[in-house]
């Protein structure tokens, strides 16, 4: 089988917050339609990597290429228009806005306005609560529903690459399963996914390949077969 065309490439990416280094020069290539996981303990540099891809923090060194072109100088709002969408940790929905207004904001990142209705129908199908509670204030939704809204809002922008930061955080196990099912459906639609998670086993099983990060470095590459290898997962996490 031929290698998928690279969509997102990180080359020697380094991120610093003042004097504090967060990411120590990682290399990563994600092909079209692939699902890549990033796991690791708190402070491993996973979220900083996503923030750098979205332009929320400037890399101190290295390059980020999207479809072969460097996007280091591209402002955050234009990265959305290129086809990148981020579901941040903590969801960051607009709690005082209606569900509908949250989705309308997601539509802003679309490259074409014509497909808006179709995109909304797709997310309504994928996450029925976004249709059911369309007029409700987003802050009134449960945690799981808010997470669905956050993913739906990213999806309506019709992204080529979906960046997900700890989507299972704070969700009950049953809701985590529902979310993974939804991500499976999103993957089937051809969306490339970069998934940052603390739930190692789940991520390794779901992603085409998963990188374990520790102290800002990639220390291990795992495949779905490794999901049952608890020793290997533990070592990926704790370096034992």
């Amino acid at each position, binding site marked *: 089988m031929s290698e998928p065309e690279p969509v997102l490439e990180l080359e020697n990416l380094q991120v610093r917050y003042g004097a504090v280094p967060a990411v120590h020069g990682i290399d990563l290539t994600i092909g079209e339609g692939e699902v890549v996981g990033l796991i690791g303990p708190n402070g491993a540099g996973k979220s900083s990597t996503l923030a750098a891809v979205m332009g929320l923090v400037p890399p101190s060194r290295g390059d980020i290429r999207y479809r072969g072109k460097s996007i280091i100088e591209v402002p955050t*709002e234009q990265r959305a228009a290129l086809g990148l969408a981020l579901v941040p940790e903590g969801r960051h929905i*607009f709690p005082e806005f209606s569900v509908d207004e949250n989705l309308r*904001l997601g539509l*802003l990142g679309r490259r074409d306005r014509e497909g808006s209705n179709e995109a909304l129908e797709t997310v309504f199908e994928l996450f029925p609560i976004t249709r059911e509670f369309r007029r409700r204030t987003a802050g009134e939704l449960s945690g799981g529903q808010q997470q669905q809204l956050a993913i739906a809002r990213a999806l309506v922008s019709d992204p080529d690459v979906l960046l997900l930061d700890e989507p299972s955080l704070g969700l009950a196990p049953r809701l985590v399963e529902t979310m993974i099912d939804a991500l499976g459906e999103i993957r089937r639609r051809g969306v490339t996914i970069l998934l940052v998670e603390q739930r190692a086993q789940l991520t390794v099983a779901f992603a085409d390949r998963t990188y374990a990060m520790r102290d800002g470095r990639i220390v291990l590459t795992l495949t779905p077969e490794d999901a049952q290898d608890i020793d290997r997962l533990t070592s990926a996490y704790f370096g034992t």
Partner: protein
Amino acid sequence: MRFLQTLIDALALGALFALVAMGVSLLFGVMRLVNFAYGELMTAGAYALLLTKDMATPVRIVTALAVTMALAALINVILRPFRAVPPTTSLIATFALSFLLQNLAILWFGTQGSAMEFLPDLNQAFAIGEVRVRWITLASLVIGVVLVATMALILRRTDIGLQMRAAAADFSMARVLGVRGNWVILVAFLATGFLAGAVTLALAVQRPLVTPSYGFNVLVPALVGVVVGGLDRLVAGTMGGFFVGFATVMLGQYLPPDARVFLNSALFTVVIVVLLVRPNGLFVRQTRGYERL
């Protein structure tokens, strides 16, 4: 009957202060910036009316609005490097800008006031029963109500309004979603410029003597209103502006004649009491989540 007369005057000044307060709150919502140079927008509008004194009224109105909006856009450009600095630094920068603009006005026009004579006939009164209402009082009320309602509609019903509200609530997330931050900030500045221009037109009729501190003198009480109402919420800040305008007229009327020189002291006493009792603002509900615009 006298009470009704005072009430109408108080409502009219309240409406104008509400507009000034709305401009200040709008910008604070989107940028976390209290723009002290806002007063100079009104001063610039007033000088535009002075310089176009011999022209037709529609030309004067359009010129004044164009000048206030253009100056607002210019201030946006000047303040751009200050977006990344702490709010206190940018606050001081707007202070400096305010004084710079006031001093430029002194250089160009001198400290002596000049009469701009804008629609003086609107100071004539008409009678409703025994109450006499000046046309400009009615006009101020209408301008205030229409512009507050229009701004509310724009914020609630349009795409740019949604983007401004999103930028005010979570600027970084709004950008992630594709909200163009620079565009939203420019629109907010232009809107405040338009509001400042509209207030200037109404004030110019009643206060035709333009001086370099023309707008600053209006900004200060309106700003007090914004703080009293609740700086962090557009509706609360706007209501605070209305409250101060309203209270100024009422206190001016009902304080004993020999105590009227203490009008500002009385007003600020009210402000201190309000802030002691409700530090977040008079019109802010004490809840956890709220929307700024």
